[in-house]
């Protein structure tokens, strides 16, 4: 049992000050802007919910939100199963493990705009291997002009960039399963599918929750990589919420609408993450209670 100790607040104080400084003050600035209007000269007027209404009624916002949701959905649908599949096939011990882990983790540590640069070059028809190969195969591929190709490039880039995170998480979950479970399963003559369904998947539930949450949040906030590769184009085909937001705040300096959009954006992420989290942890314990032996006749 944990002991009750109110003095523990002193231990938390540094973190509180640090994050408070970096989170609360900027957030209050955003809230401030979102309810005020300005005509320059640093003079502000109360605007109420005008900006919120404007954002919520603009097709531009809903389009960007839709593109973001679609992107996150595609990313999750590809990366989670692929990551689990690769982790299942990784060696458990031996010298190969370290090599696998190091090489797989490499894309995670490349600065995001360099990731964008790599794919911008890689996909070019004239000097990129991918673009050139596709062109040689007779496929009309041009991510600068064709929206479908732009999406294909961005999805491929994100899968390349982040699937390893899912692999590492899933692998960590798999390694933590005691050998006794597998022995029991093999005595019972369980098929590989049954082992996966009744032993590995339930044990992976926790890490997969984290993987889905992290991948959802990060793909929903994505900015740098698509900005470098497509700049939001062609047209608005890959203008995600954050690209739109930066354009509005820094490019056009529409502080009010940008701030209102920031708040709505943040709330959408919080809400969706919370929904994911509740849905995925609701069944916690049920699969674990399932005894692999009892399922076999």
């Amino acid at each position: 049992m944990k002991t009750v100790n109110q003095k523990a607040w002193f231990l938390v104080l540094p973190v509180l000050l640090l994050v408070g400084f970096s989170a609360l003050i900027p957030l209050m600035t955003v809230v401030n802007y979102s309810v005020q209007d300005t005509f320059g000269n640093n003079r502000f007027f109360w605007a109420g919910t005008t900006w919120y209404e404007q954002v919520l009624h603009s097709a531009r916002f809903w389009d960007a939100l839709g593109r973001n949701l679609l992107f996150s959905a595609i990313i999750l649908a590809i990366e989670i199963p692929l990551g689990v599949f690769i982790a299942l096939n990784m060696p458990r011990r031996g010298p190969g493990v370290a090599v696998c882990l190091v090489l797989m983790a490499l894309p995670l540590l490349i600065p995001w705009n360099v990731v964008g640069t790599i794919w911008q070059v890689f996909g070019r028809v004239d000097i990129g291997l991918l673009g050139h190969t596709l062109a040689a195969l007779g496929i009309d591929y041009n991510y600068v002009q064709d929206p479908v190709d732009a999406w294909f490039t961005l999805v491929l880039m994100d899968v390349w960039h982040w699937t390893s995170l899912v692999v590492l998480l899933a692998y960590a979950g798999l390694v933590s399963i005691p050998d006794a479970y597998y022995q029991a399963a093999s005595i019972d003559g369980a098929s590989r599918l049954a082992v996966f369904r009744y032993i590995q998947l339930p044990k992976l539930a926790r890490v997969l929750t984290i993987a889905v949450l992290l991948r959802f949040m990060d793909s929903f906030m994505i900015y740098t990589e698509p900005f470098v590769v497509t700049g939001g184009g062609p047209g608005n085909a890959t203008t995600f919420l954050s690209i739109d937001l930066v354009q509005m705040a820094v490019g056009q300096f529409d502080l009010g609408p940008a701030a209102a959009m920031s708040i709505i954006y943040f709330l959408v992420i919080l809400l969706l993450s919370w929904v994911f989290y509740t849905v995925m942890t609701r069944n916690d314990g049920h699969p674990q209670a399932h005894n692999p032996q009892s399922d076999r006749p």
Partner: protein
Amino acid sequence: MRRISALVPALYIVLLLLPVYWLVNMSFKSNAEITSGLTLWPAAPTLRNYAVIFSDPSWYRGYINSLGYVLLNTLISVGAALPAAYAFSRYTFLGDKHLFFWLLSNRMAPAAVFALPFFQLYSAVGLLDTHLAVALAHCLFNVPLAVWILEGFMSAVPREIDEMASIDGHSFGAFFVKIFMPLIASGIGVAAFFCFMFSWVELLIARTLTTTAAKPIAAIMTRTVSASGMDWGVLAAAGVLTIIPGAIVIWFVRNHIATGFALGRV
């Protein structure tokens, strides 16, 4: 069966390394060779692109800047997170759960939302264009993450050790530094790894808060290239050089990655 199963990770790694290889390949080519046609390896390998970077202070200072604020951030994040994680793992106190979730919710804040207010905040306190500004700003998402990871590792250490140390007459500070921290050394390593990683790869905030004196290499890359009209070779070389620090860091924590993911809650 086993052979097929070894094939999957091998194939995946090859696909992962292909774009990276392409960048390395390009970094050793001259611009004339890059634009004239597609070659799978440099026909006339040249170090010119790297020479350009290492002989120009405006280029190589970017690396020093990036490394500077990343290391500073890692230090601050892990240093502040250690006592907090201990508090969360050992004690119950008023509002502890709410505090924990508030901390984590900062991990969900899009950087785009904070770019402008950060700029105003740090110019108000006079920290703009310093390494400290970027290091502090990155604490927004790194401190919660470090607390989260360290809390998982600390909770795996039996509570009896704390009690025994206090019976033996160790003060809390001495116990924490001399006995407890060595016990969670791999956890500290993993937390530092993640702080390094997320600070190293982030660009939007880093670019917003810096103009010249602390500008990260990744930002210099984009600017110089657009100004001098696509110098592909130098761009590729600069990209390759940004991959190297990450690769070194992974190599150091390679034995802890898997355990780190399992024990910590990330």
